[in-house]
């Protein structure tokens, strides 16, 4: 089996008394796009800096292409970083910035010119080589930073929130652009972001981090649909949480009793003891508000009594804020079908949700 391009084993990094990264282990296969996703201060950038060699881990191993590199300085590692705010050399031209890495590798100057031109084509900035970084727009600087990183054909591309300083429109188009270039070059990428949208669109796999620990690693769909901790469920998308007690497990379904006695059926969890306190996670788009006519609950359909507290019109869909009978607040999102009846604020409704959309979680 081929060794993964990047592998971290039990990496820990401290800053003084602060434990920034705690026992992180993750592997990135050749050509894979892995995203480290998490809120600021979760240790994702620290992890990236450990891979690049800017920081030395206090414990654990860093392997690039199967080789231990903890002792190697950044300039001896075959990684290239795209920095937040780009870190373009302000005293060099665009071409000078891109040529820098090639010059350091003693590439003949005739070849440097050719490769700089070609990479400018790839990032769609042909002819801008003579400009200074300060003469470029944010999006263009971003592309130069990317060109500078990929021109040396590194094995691993590291990206530290490269889009965070751009406006929304540009961010969305550059996401796809970065992804296209990464796929075309077949380069292995580790991408750091706090933006779940970016992570979902770009990644082959996402590693969700919180407080220095990887909470869950998996493909975007798995992270979204089967979050394993409340943190992951909360951080990716919007989630409703209902507190309850695990009453029984029957026919591959778990029966949960909420605080007011309401019974709900949920997908069977991997484990779980009867009587345990649990959290039920339900995505807002899986709840349906029905006015009045209750069908009566069953193992194929859960029902919650709720009172609508607010109605928000969002164009393509309607968002309701509601308070369920157990006293907890939930959010409901429904497709906006023109002409369909809508609930009003203060109205009593029945919220329906299929058991396969109720996920059992344990508070960590």
């Amino acid at each position, binding site marked *: 089996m081929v060794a993964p391009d990047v592998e971290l084993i039990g990496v820990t990094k401290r800053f003084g008394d602060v434990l920034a990264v705690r026992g992180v282990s993750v592997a990135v296969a050749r050509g894979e796009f892995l995203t480290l996703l998490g809120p600021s201060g979760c240790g994702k950038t620290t992890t990236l800096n450990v891979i690049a060699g800017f920081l030395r881990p206090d414990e654990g191993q860093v392997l690039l292409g199967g080789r231990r590199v903890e002792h190697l*300085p950044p*300039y001896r590692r075959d990684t290239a970083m795209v920095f937040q705010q780009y870190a373009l050399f*302000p005293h060099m031209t665009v071409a000078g910035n891109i040529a820098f890495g090639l010059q*350091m*590798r003693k590439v003949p100057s005739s070849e440097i010119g050719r490769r700089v031109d070609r990479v400018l084509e790839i990032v769609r900035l042909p002819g801008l080589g003579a400009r200074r970084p300060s003469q470029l727009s944010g999006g263009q600087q971003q592309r130069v930073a990317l060109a500078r990183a990929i021109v040396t054909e590194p094995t691993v591309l590291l990206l530290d929130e490269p889009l965070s300083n751009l406006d929304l429109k540009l961010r969305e188009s550059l996401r796809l652009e970065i992804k296209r270039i990464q796929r075309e070059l077949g380069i292995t990428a580790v991408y750091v972001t706090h933006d779940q949208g970016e992570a979902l669109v770009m990644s082959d796999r996402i590693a969700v981090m919180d407080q220095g620990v990887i909470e869950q690693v998996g493909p975007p769909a798995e992270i979204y649909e089967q979050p394993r901790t409340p943190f992951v469920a909360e951080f990716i998308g919007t989630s409703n949480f209902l507190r309850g007690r695990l009453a029984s497990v029957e026919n591959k379904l778990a029966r949960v009793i909420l605080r007011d006695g309401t019974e709900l059926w949920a997908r069977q969890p991997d484990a779980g003891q009867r009587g345990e306190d649990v959290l039920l996670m339900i995505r807002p788009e899986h709840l349906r508000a029905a006015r009045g006519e209750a069908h009566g609950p069953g193992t194929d359909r859960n029902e919650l009594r709720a009172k609508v507290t607010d109605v928000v019109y969002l164009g393509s869909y309607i968002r309701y804020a509601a308070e369920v009978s157990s006293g907890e607040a939930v959010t409901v999102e429904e497709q906006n079908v023109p002409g369909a009846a809508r609930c009003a604020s203060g109205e009593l409704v029945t919220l329906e949700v299929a058991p396969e959309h109720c996920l059992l979680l344990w508070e960590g």
Partner: protein
Amino acid sequence: MGGSGYVGPARARVERLIPSVLYRGVLVLVLAFVAAPIVVVFLSSVNSSQYLRFPPEGFSTRWWVAALSERWMVPTWFSLRLAAATAITATVFGTLAALGVHRGRFRGREAFLAVLLSPLILPQIVTGAALLQFFKLAGLGDVLGFPALLMGHVVVTLPYAVRTVMVSLHGFDPRLEWAAQDLGASPLQTFWRVTLPLIKNGVFAGAVFAFIVSFNDVPISLFLGRPGNVPIPIAILGQVESRFDPAVSAVAVVTIAIVLALIAVGERFARVSEFIYQQER
């Protein structure tokens, strides 16, 4: 204007006028006071008689001829060499130290900076006197003259170099150094290709300030020179203490011209003036 009682327009105008006239008057007087001695030095250097009279009595180059003689040019040349050597030494030490302070994550970073800047707080006359005593006690009386002056001048100019480089490092993004290393540059290559080009204005300004401070220094030079080996300010001091000589005016103009020329060059290559506000005090 609300609130105040009604004031007649004429009186209000006078009330507004008095402070403003007073302010302008004082301003002009103070500026005249500031300019006077420098202007007088210029005038007296081309005045024909021993004492400057008003109106001037005639134009003469005789003081300039005297000033450009060996008597004055030897100490001037001595000062130029001393200031150049001081500037280079202080800038090399100071740049390294400023980079050290800037990079340091260690506790006591502020304390190290304070130590580096401390020669600025100490009266220079104390540093000069203490160094003289030190050299004598160490049996190093022979270093008095150029070597001792260089050592002393570097002590008092080092803080200037540290400070200007610190100023230019202030907006320096450490990730630029990371980026260079990430692209394969060794620490030394990173310094020459990225760090130094980006802080060169501060380094250059530090060198210019160190040069000027050294070139104009009195309190250190007072103690550490030896006969025939004194910088120009001490030579001037020795002359004016004993006898009034208008040739000194011409020499003074020469020293000012040297400093101004240096500032002009510094301004042209490194916009030195941007560091002046951070410098004084």
